[in-house]
């Protein structure tokens, strides 16, 4: 036995021999035990040889059988419970946002699918140290009793994964993951109230996820849930006891999750998310109550639902060979031609004929009997055939008008432009890019109120004021932050937590006074299927394309490989039946070349319009500045002359002023009494542009006059945002 083993490894003859000796000696005990079973001993030896250990052979720690005991299914829930960052729960602050976001996204999807104008209530309240309760309710269709536990308590359960249709949610992970996170961090169950029939009472569940089995557990009503009592004293008691906040609606769903979280204003906050959601979804009404009890209302600007996105068949270009084979096997079609026309979008029967001919197959062949080689030919023929892009009605753009309105509603600026690209296809999935841009106006930092600043300072976890400014406000870059701090007289390393009242006043004033136009960096808003993307900008195809675009050509300043600077906000919306995200937490769009190309074209389109505006304005402004420079010095000159020769100072000043005005006439032409730019030649800009005169204080900007070629924009109801 031993010999045969040694023969197997002839190259190691000499070395293993000595190894064998020592190992024999070492294993003396084992041998004594294993005398009865020489075969096993030999096996052990062979293992030693195989490893070619020079001196010591490692002890076997476990046998395959033993290991098999530990090998078992990993449930999805367990996997994600351990890898919560994949779903966007990496830190307490993000966890809160992700929870709200998943719930709101689901609500909007449900409302739109059911054809209901969405109305959303969001309430966040503090329940303890680092503990928050997030309640999100919609007026959606409601969910039938039997499905509630699965939808909220089971990962990877949903309606959206298996179809090609434009929607916010995709996988069916989000809300159940949020619930799971809540249960994991606080031990409190997820509370769901849902009503789908106005005649029946709302139903109430308390849920928990069994992470091992990926199964929901219902805690109340002996695993059946309970009905909400009829309005009255009993109802009050019931609601009070369970901490419910059901807003009475004929149909809708409310989910309440208690979780470990951190609430913080500023970039990437719940407030920010809801505001951006309002931009991309002008048909939605949102009521939001923040942890301080402040209420925000984003009223809908449009009373029409966006057109219902159609579910589509896969497009031949997006299919893979293996996929095609499976489809061939499982189809109900009897002929190949029928199979092609019924399983794919945009394949007409004549096109199917062409494809079959190219693949050297009969149109009447039975799809189930197509062999391996033939299906490969068919695949190639499909890829080479000229097939029109998938139907476009399956992706619904927000639309140029609504983009302009939405952006104008939230971002105060002087110039707005939007562009909707024609649909295109990546891997057979139709998608569409929309870009919008707002230019001019003041940054968010300028319009912030003293109280809000105070609160932000209290909440921030930034170590230095500079960091606080850069992270807390969109549009403030390093330069601008430095300017503000210098103006306010702080050192860059001042801590935001320890400011005295007078110091905050100073900071607030500096933020209002400093001209941020120079130091501002472009503010980028990213949307995928109308959902704002707030994290991982660096990994996102949108940000990458914005940085790769040469904005200098459009009149902005931009350092190499960076975001351009200036008072600019750019919004990019990727709409698709399947948005390719880089991770399950849906934070960044993957860089498919087709998507990159469309984004680039979209950005270039808005960029060209921007450059027209910037150049024009620059010219006017230069003239204006010229005049300002002259005006500044005229007084001094007049005084000096008066002192030398005694001429009347004021008369001289007026005379000089006249000359100055004549010298800078160009500035006059386009400057009205208020000193702001009005352009008579707007028609040049085309249809997708909105130019706003705004002189009035900022809050009024939302209701301000809108001048532009977009008549519908100015006549449409302005969304109102009020704080109570």
């Amino acid at each position, binding site marked *: 036995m031993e010999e045969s083993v040694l023969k197997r490894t002839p190259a190691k003859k000499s070395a293993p021999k000595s190894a064998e000796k020592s190992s024999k000696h070492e294993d003396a005990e084992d041998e004594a035990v294993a005398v009865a079973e020489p075969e096993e001993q030999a096996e052990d030896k062979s293992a030693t040889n195989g490893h070619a250990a020079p001196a010591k052979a490692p002890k076997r720690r476990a046998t395959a059988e033993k290991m098999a005991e530990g090998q078992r299914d990993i449930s999805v829930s367990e996997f994600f419970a351990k890898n919560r960052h994949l779903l966007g729960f990496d830190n307490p602050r993000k966890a809160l946002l992700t929870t709200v976001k998943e719930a709101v996204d689901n609500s909007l999807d449900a409302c739109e699918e059911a054809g209901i104008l969405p109305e959303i209530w969001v309430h966040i309240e503090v329940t303890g140290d680092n503990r928050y309760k997030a309640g999100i309710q919609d007026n959606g269709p409601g969910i039938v009793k039997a499905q509630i536990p699965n939808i909220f308590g089971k990962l990877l359960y949903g309606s959206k994964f298996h179809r090609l249709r434009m929607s916010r949610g995709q996988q069916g992970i989000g809300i159940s993951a949020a619930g799971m996170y809540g249960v994991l961090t606080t031990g409190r169950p997820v509370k769901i109230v849902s009503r789908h029939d106005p005649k029946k009472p709302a139903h109430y569940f308390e849920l928990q996820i069994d992470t091992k089995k990926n199964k929901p557990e219902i805690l109340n009503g002996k695993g059946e849930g309970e009905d909400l009592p009829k309005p009255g004293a009993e109802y009050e008691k019931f609601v009070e006891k369970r901490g419910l906040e059901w807003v009475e609606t004929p149909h809708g769903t409310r989910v309440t999750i208690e979780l470990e979280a951190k609430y913080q204003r500023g970039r990437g906050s719940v407030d920010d998310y809801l505001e951006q959601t309002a931009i991309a979804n002008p048909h939605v009404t949102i009521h939001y109550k923040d942890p301080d009890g402040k209420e925000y209302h984003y009223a809908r600007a449009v009373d029409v639902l966006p057109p219902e996105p159609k579910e589509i068949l896969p497009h031949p270009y997006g299919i893979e060979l293996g996929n095609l084979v499976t489809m061939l096997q499982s189809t109900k079609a009897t002929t190949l031609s029928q199979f092609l026309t019924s399983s794919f979008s945009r394949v007409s029967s004549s096109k199917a004929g062409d494809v079959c001919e190219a693949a050297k197959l009969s149109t009447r062949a039975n799809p189930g009997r197509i062999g391996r080689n033939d299906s490969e030919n068919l695949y190639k023929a499909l890829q080479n055939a000229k097939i029109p892009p998938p139907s476009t009605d399956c992706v619904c753009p927000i639309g140029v008008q609504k983009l302009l309105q939405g952006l104008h509603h939230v971002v105060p600026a002087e110039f707005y432009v939007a562009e909707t690209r024609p649909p295109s296809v990546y891997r057979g999935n139709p998608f569409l890019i929309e870009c919008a841009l707002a230019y001019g106006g003041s940054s968010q930092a300028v319009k912030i109120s003293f109280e809000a600043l105070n609160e932000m300072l209290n909440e921030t976890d930034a170590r230095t004021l500079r960091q606080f400014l850069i992270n807390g406000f969109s549009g403030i870059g390093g330069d601008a932050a430095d300017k503000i701090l210098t103006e306010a007289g702080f050192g860059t390393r001042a801590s935001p937590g320890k400011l005295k009242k007078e110091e905050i006043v100073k900071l607030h004033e500096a933020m209002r006074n400093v001209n941020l136009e120079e130091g501002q960096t472009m503010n980028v808003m990213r949307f995928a299927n109308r959902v704002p993307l707030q994290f991982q900008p660096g990994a996102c195809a949108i940000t990458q394309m914005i940085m790769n675009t040469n904005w200098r050509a459009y009149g902005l300043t931009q350092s190499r490989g960076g975001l351009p600077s200036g008072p600019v906000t750019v919004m990019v919306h990727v709409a698709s039946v399947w948005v390719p995200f880089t991770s399950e937490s849906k934070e960044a769009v993957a860089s498919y070349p087709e998507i990159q190309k469309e984004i680039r074209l979209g950005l270039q389109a808005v960029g060209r319009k921007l450059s027209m505006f910037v150049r024009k304005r620059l010219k006017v402004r230069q003239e204006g500045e*010229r005049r300002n*420079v*002259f005006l*500044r*010095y*005229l*007084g*001094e*000159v007049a*005084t*000096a*002359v008066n*002192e*030398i*020769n005694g*001429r009347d100072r004021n008369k*001289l000043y007026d*005379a*000089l002023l*006249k*000359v*100055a005005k*004549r*010298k800078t006439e160009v500035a006059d032409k386009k400057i009205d009494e208020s000193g702001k730019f009005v352009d008579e030649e707007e028609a040049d800009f085309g249809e997708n542009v909105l130019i706003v005169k705004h002189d009035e204080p900022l809050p009024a900007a939302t209701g301000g006059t809108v001048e532009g070629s977009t008549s519908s924009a100015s006549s449409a109801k302005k969304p109102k945002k009020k704080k109570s």
Partner: protein
Amino acid sequence: MAKKPASSKSGGAPVNVSVKDKKTLTSLRRVADDVATCADSGRAPHLDVPSRSLSNVRFNKTKRFLEMGGGTNRRELFNLSQAKSYMQTLLISSGCKRLIEQGKTTSLRGLYYMLKHTIEGTKEETFEDQEDSDSVIEDVEVTLDSLREEMHLYASNRGNLVGPITFIDNGDTIDCTRMGSAGYSIPSICEPDVIQFKDCKADFILHVEKDTVWRRFAEDKFWKKHNCIVSHGGGQPPRGVRRLLHRLHNELKLPVYCLLDNDPWGYYIYSVLKQGSINLAFESVRMGIPEAKYIGLRSKDFDRCKLSNSVKINLNDQDIKRAKQIAEYPWFKDKKPWQKEIQTMLGQGFKLEVESLISKDISYVTEEYVPARLQDKDWLD
């Protein structure tokens, strides 16, 4: 300084205005009237300021100094880049007018503070710093064709002198052999009405570059041994020093020898003393000393005096650039010895300061170096 009016302290009473002052006032008024006329007729006012750059400087070969050409730069009020300096020019003019009328004088810095204020309705200052106003003052000088002292302005004193000469400075008799360790501080304005020469026993003037070297000469009583005046100008000599040297040279017929660093900056100091500066070419006639000689340091001195390596200062890019510029100046261009001097320095790749001689011996420069050069008449012209 122009005539100091006797009645300057008569508290608001009209001061006596000298003929010179009247001339200056007339020029000032002409500038102001011009603005008014332009404004009345709707034209944009402008000033023609004689250009103070190399392109507007001509080397007069017979007189052997720099002369200002007829070139002017137009300074317009309604030109974005010139508006501010136009305003400043008028401001300076009005300031000078005030000084003349009140019969007072002030320093350049004084005028700067007098006129510096925030422009109404802005955060901008009329003058950001003194350099701003100094250069405008020079512009006004050339525009009005009036000297600084005629505008009642003076610069801060720089430069000292020691030697067997007695001045009458503003009425005080000053014996420059008895001025202590610091010597006589040369005033900014050395016109005959301020300084008169009373008695001079010196045979020549030795002008050195900076204070350190000057003190060596003063302490070693070089002036006593060699019967000369030793002066320095603290680097590039100010106008007062140049004017005084000019007067001593012309009125008392004292030859001038210069002991300067062997680097482009030293060469240019010599050039300024000899044929006037490019910037103030209009003053050359009152200041240039075409007969001034350059006795050192020479680029050959490193070998000649057997200096140690450690006193070498490597030329930087700026030095090399400047040296090449100077070699191209017309008044250096035709002088073979000078071309050779500059080429040698560039070839060696290092410069030498006068102070480097101290490394030989503390009094090497006064006891051996300068006497030897003077004895051998070894200098550059």
